[in-house]
């Protein structure tokens, strides 16, 4: 009985990783304008922005997180105007701690986007509620980086973090998915 259970667990892990890698390839298709080399350079420079935020896979949550959820932290905005990366300044990301993130915005050609106006929003799509706080971009750090302060997650599960970005008269938005214990 025990060994049966073990194989069950191993099997589901395998399926899970297959789903994850499928998500990964879907993401790189969306990121057509960035060559693989550019992606690597950027990931190297920004230390792990290409990592998935789904560090808590397998955690028992009360809602089923959609299996196809794209949890990449580097993504193109909806209209393809900007490529955006997010990095938490709290590592690991945890519930109930107010903290900041760093947002990096560049053009599809890899030019950092400066003087952008950025609005932050988000919440839990499965619970019909927003963030428990009002996160804001408080500082432009230079070279396309922006400080997002006041982020707080107060429960486990699937969170969305959205940014509406306007720079040089061009507006676009992006929603990241974050899955937490």
């Amino acid at each position, binding site marked *: *009985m*025990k060994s049966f*259970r073990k194989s*069950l*667990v191993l099997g589901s892990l395998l399926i899970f990783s297959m789903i994850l890698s499928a998500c990964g390839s879907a993401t790189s298709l969306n990121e057509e304008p960035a060559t693989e080399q550019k992606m690597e350079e950027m990931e190297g420079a920004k230390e792990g922005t290409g990592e998935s935020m789904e560090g*808590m896979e*397998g*955690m*028992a949550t*009360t809602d089923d997180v959609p299996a196809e959820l794209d949890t990449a932290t580097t993504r193109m905005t909806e209209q393809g105007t900007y490529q955006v990366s997010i990095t938490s300044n709290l590592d690991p990301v945890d*519930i*109930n701690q*107010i903290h900041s993130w760093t947002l990096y915005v560049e053009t599809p050609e890899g030019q950092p986007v400066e003087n952008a106006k950025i609005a932050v929003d988000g919440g839990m799509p499965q*619970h*019909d*509620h*927003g*963030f*428990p*706080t*009002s*996160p*804001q971009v408080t500082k432009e750090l230079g070279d396309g980086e922006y400080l997002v*302060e*006041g982020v*707080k997650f*107060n*429960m*486990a*599960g699937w969170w969305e973090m959205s940014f509406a970005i306007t720079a040089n008269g061009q507006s676009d938005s992006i929603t990241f998915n974050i899955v937490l*214990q």
Partner: protein
Amino acid sequence: MQRITKLKVRLFNLSILLFVMMLGISCAPQRSAPSQQSQDRISPETEASDALWTAAEIATLRSIWIGSLPPLPPDPSNFVGDDPRAASLGQKLYFDTRFSANGEVSCATCHQPDLLFTDGLPRAEAIGTTPRGAPTIVGSAYSPWFFWDGRRDSQWAQALTPLESPIEHGGTRTQYVHVIDEDETYRAEYETIFGPLPDLSDRTRFPEVAGPVEDLEARAAWDAMALEDREAVTRAYVNMGKAIAAYERLVMPGPSRFDRYVQALLEGDEETMQTTLTPDEVAGLRLFIQQGNCIRCHNGPLFTNNGFHNIGVPTTEGLPLDLGRISGVQQVISSEFNCLGSYSDAGPDDCAELRFVKTLGQELPGAFKVPTLRNVAETAPYMHSGQFATLREVLNHYNQAQAGPIGHSELTPLNLSDAELAQLEAFLRSLSGHLATDPEVLAPPQ
């Protein structure tokens, strides 16, 4: 569809139960987790701990275990927060009924150590009766917000608020500072910690009763005082609050049976697990982290996210509609004692909770602070105005999820059976434990 699955699982469980009974082995009551694992779990072959809980569930249980409670971080707004001399003075102030209009009310009137720092009443009774119940102080030092509506953002600012409320302590800050000044012990201890008190002997400059309170005479006397005198009194008054907070920071929960169970689980000590929680309590724990959705908000080792949620609690008859957080947030923003104010010792970077506080949104009307569930069985009645007398009433409310009197309730019906509600209640009763606080701290100082 889900119900059909559930029914099937129950039928399946029933057959397993019969089988187990035939074997003469006692077994936990019905389970409803529709998975292969649940079939595994109730198999008589796999009583071992690793079959009871998956790795993911163990991680969740560890996250609410008291061993996961981090050391209490400093309160940047209170520079004496961790000064034992301040805690010692604060303990005396906490139990002293002279800090009230009628000489009969202290902090301990409503936050009684013997009742786990509550009063056992639906609504607190001091000079008058308050519209809400007295929440516990146990572990509250970890919270960024105080009161059911979060209208203060530090323990010291919280402590000062009832002192000037006409229905709680009912006095004024000038009165209280005179008490400190005229009690030799208090004055000596105060001055050692905070430096000299102002010379308060001139009663025309410093009236017996004066403060920014509802009482018109006391307010008029306060308004007539010179600005610098008002500031000197307020500074000393704030220091009283900071001493009380230093005391309250010592009041911490201790391990419960639930914590001993998780510890045994983490150590692989199955025997202790089996003798620590009953099968019903374990089943209740499973409901708590799964179908009950309890852990959404009652998370972390204090079983609270210290956030504000609308769960549709009915209004108490005879009381006006309580707006909850949407009102509290405006009060904390305008409070002279908030984290960003001149009486706070914090810098702006220490005040992220206040700087990025949510002031608008459908989540706020009718939302109240999530209380800790540690010792919940000992701290009836429940909800912000003691609307529910028993845990069972609370659980029935969550199970039915009726719409509340205001705003948008976050609850959805749980459709748990009576047996499952009983298991949840049994689990909640396993969260009681002695405080991890020196007994001397829990009694009035000699």
